[in-house]
């Protein structure tokens, strides 16, 4: 490059800085729009967790938002400091101050320990409070009698028993909106995990043990629920429809429909049902063996065996 007069060289370097700054800003804009695209365009806001349909999921979301907001007190300074320091203290910038032995400054130490500690203190109170309020074992509204449902995880389907109505359903959970739902959960196979993302959850389903989950749908609607704990080759299809009916009458009509089913669930038909099967269609049982849920738990407590036929070479082949 031919030698330029000093003034021109200065202009050139200024031009370079402007170009660099411009490129940097463009990068920021691109990054921001990517983020927007990720969170809004592709429908994240219409998803079950961020768009809840019941008070439990709503409260869970609120805690999520509060925590994100308070954490920004540390997150944003990190981003700003990183960007600022990388730019300002780049080695080629001879105008920036250079203090190679700066290794301790007590106000900074107090700040970097104190501020995160303060945030965690604030968060701890909310965590304690939220965890107790949203305890899945706690009734949503103690003054209202909830609808009792018993859920049994099987390979690879869900069985719902309505003890008060004496009916059972495979892969469909129907309940009236506005009335709390009290679910007792167990497994007749490996460990599963029960969730309806639009309403709340989740809780493990374990053989020989029972867990509990209380839910409430504010408004009528159709949701999906499923097992989210990996459980074998039929796992991906182990899901069910959860339907919150608009009125109690609709719910009663559904009960009446189930009651017309010719199938009943006694010890023999249950054994058949409990065998591994995939993509089982919704099945109604108009009557259920008394205390079936407790018997399933007791079976494992007292010994018990799996319904799983030991995997043969052919079955493994089929995988």
């Amino acid at each position, binding site marked *: 490059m031919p030698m330029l007069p000093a003034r021109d060289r200065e202009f050139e370097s200024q031009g370079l800085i402007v170009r660099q700054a411009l490129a940097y800003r463009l990068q920021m804009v691109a990054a921001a729009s990517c983020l927007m695209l990720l969170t809004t365009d*592709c*429908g*994240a806001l219409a*998803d079950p*967790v961020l768009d809840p349909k019941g008070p439990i999921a709503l409260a*869970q979301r609120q*805690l999520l938002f509060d*925590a994100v907001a308070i*954490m920004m007190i*540390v*997150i944003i300074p*990190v981003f700003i*400091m*990183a960007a600022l*320091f*990388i730019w300002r*203290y*780049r*080695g080629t910038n001879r105008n*920036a101050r*250079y*203090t*190679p032995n*700066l290794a301790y*400054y007590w106000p900074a*130490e107090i700040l*970097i320990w104190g501020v*995160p*500690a303060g945030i965690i203190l604030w968060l*701890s109170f*909310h*965590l304690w409070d*939220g*965890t*107790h309020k*949203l*305890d899945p074992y706690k009734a949503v509204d103690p003054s209202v009698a909830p609808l009792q449902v018993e859920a049994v995880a099987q390979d690879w389907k869900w069985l719902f028993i309505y003890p008060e109505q004496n009916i059972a359903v495979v892969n469909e959970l129907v309940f009236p909106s506005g009335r709390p739902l009290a679910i007792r959960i167990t497994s007749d196979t*490996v*460990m599963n995990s029960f*969730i309806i*993302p*639009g309403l*709340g*959850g*989740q*809780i493990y389903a*374990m*053989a*020989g043990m029972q867990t509990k989950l209380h839910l409430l749908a504010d408004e009528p609607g159709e949701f999906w629920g499923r097992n989210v704990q*990996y459980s*074998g*080759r039929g*796992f*991906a299809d182990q899901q069910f429809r959860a339907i919150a009916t608009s009125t109690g009458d609709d719910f009663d009509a559904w009960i009446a429909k189930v009651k017309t089913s010719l199938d009943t669930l006694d010890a023999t038909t249950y054994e058949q049902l409990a065998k591994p099967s995939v993509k089982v269609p919704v099945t109604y049982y108009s009557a259920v063996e008394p205390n079936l849920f407790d018997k399933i738990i007791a079976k494992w407590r007292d010994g018990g*065996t*799996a319904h799983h036929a*030991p*995997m043969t070479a052919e079955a493994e*082949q089929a*995988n």
Partner: protein
Amino acid sequence: MFGRLTIEAFPFYSAIAATGAAITVLGAVSVIAVITYFRAWRLVLFDWISSLDHKKIGIMYVMLALVMLMRGFIDAAMMRSQQAIASGNDGYLPPGHFDQIFSSHGTIMIFFMAMPFLSGLINHIMPQQIGARDVAFPFMNAISLWLTAAGAGLVLISLAIGKFSTAGWSGYPPYSGAEYNPGVGVDYWLWAVLIAGVGSTMSGINFLVTILKCRAPGMHLFRMPLFTWTVLVTSILMIFAFPALTVACGLLALDRIFGMHFFTNAMGGNMMHYINLFWLWGHPEVYILILPAFGVFSEVVATFSQKRLFGYISLVLATMAIGILSFSVWLHHFFTMGASADVNSFFGIMTTIIAVPTGVKVFDWLLTMYRGRIIFKPPMLYTLGFLVTFVIGGLSGVLLALPPVDYTMHNTTFLVAHFHNMIIPGVLFGYLAGYMFWFPKAFGFKLNEKWGTRSFWCWIVGFYLAFMPLYVLGLMGMPRRMEHYDIPAWQPHLIVAAIGAFIILLGIICLGIQLAVSIRDREQARDLTGDPWNGRSLEWATSSPPAPYNFAILPHVQSIDAFWDMKHRGVAYQRPDRYVDIFLPKNTFVGAFIGGAGFVFGFGMVWYIWWLAILALAAIALAIIVRAFDDDTDTIIPASKVKEIEDARFAQLAKAPRNELADDPGFAAEAVPEGSS
């Protein structure tokens, strides 16, 4: 005779599985072919495989890690591509195959990529940082390496003979029990983890004793470089945590082989006992992996900001705090088990508390850059990428620590995104930064910077593309480990994630090209001084690569940043008056033999070939007894030989009088006190 092993174990039933097996076998054959072609068997056997030199063991660990990184990444790429296409259809992988892939991906990345990478960096660097000539127990060090390799070998051979586990990397019972999973897959996982776990426990003991007993004169604990501090805490975690894993897996093995009922559904078994034990190891394990990476970042950020590390005491205290807290949070991996609100709150709060020391570290690194002169070499780029990306993972981690939030997010891809957000920028970027930072130390020439920079950009862009969509999917309720799905709204995100995985592949390719180009151009990138980055800690006081004994004369340490201080006082390259004989451990094949026998033992246990397993165990016992009676385990490097090596080194130093970093436009200063230049 051959237990469960029959001809049906070979994967001729599926084209994809057979291809995997063929690639594995081809890989092994080509390694043998290359060694034979270069007539390098003598070198490989007598200089490397039998070596007890901590530096060579470290290099072999890292080589193992890089090979397994490749294998683990192929698994990841297969999962991403399967999920990108399997919307409303079955994709190209059947469930039984997809499940093996996610299980082997996690197992490989944690046990056989991250752990060996970690042990490799520690092995090579930590003894040099404290001014030692080797680790405390060089022979045990070799056993650790070869047991880890034996575990990795079991995972690899499961591709060609039999199948791997489908129970995920955490192997939750009762699914992983014999009743639901009678095949060999879980056994492969079990014995790979058990055998490698024994190696890791011994590594922890070795590193801890080395740091406590082998420091150079004057190297007080509070003068140790931060990397060594993090190794100290990590090795304590290893010693306390790994036995929990060994017990959990051991009991699961008893369940599977002898039909016992520790974790079964029936007969009083309880799967939650396993899950408690597993995470009692599993959570400290996260910190075992990440603390040394934090150590690397501390070294790198100070070196390339050309400034003292800010808040040394704070960083040490934060490291200790994380180490202690890591044992009090394991229950956050299963808030959804149905524990009481009090229990969940306690573990939730303990988990959020870890964010405090971690946040302190991030700010200390940022403040190290403050008023520094930052040089953007690839290790520094990885560090900066980590700083910015890691806080996002920290945020999602705190969210998951809130039990009510965890109820909705547990087992979803939000969780997957979270822990990859910690482990890729936190752990892997740290190790890659360390690899590029210390490569010249290990091999005597620098890695190509252009390709290093390219690999960084591919990794970071690929990371964001691959994992930010998983956060979104998690909020949409998508569970992890879905082989196919029928919610079409998920697919666009999964396609973006697959593109991200592809860009990460480019990053891995860049790493390979970087290595090849650097080896080709090594003469132009020689590190003649042993101090290519104007370094601060003692490992830069040795030559590159270091002499077998590291230090001809043990250094006397007078401050933090010991080597910087020596350069400052003008005593860094003093020639001693006379040299003395140096004792070093003699090479032996016993370590590799024990590893090989460990592999055979594992293979016998997997296939129920009992006689083979018993034979292998007996061989290990015999080898240890024979070794114990061997009193001639040292070799002496006579003073004359030391003088010869050192004279050559000083002659080389004389040819490179200048600081190697001085040509960099961002170079600030030699090691001189502020204001006196």
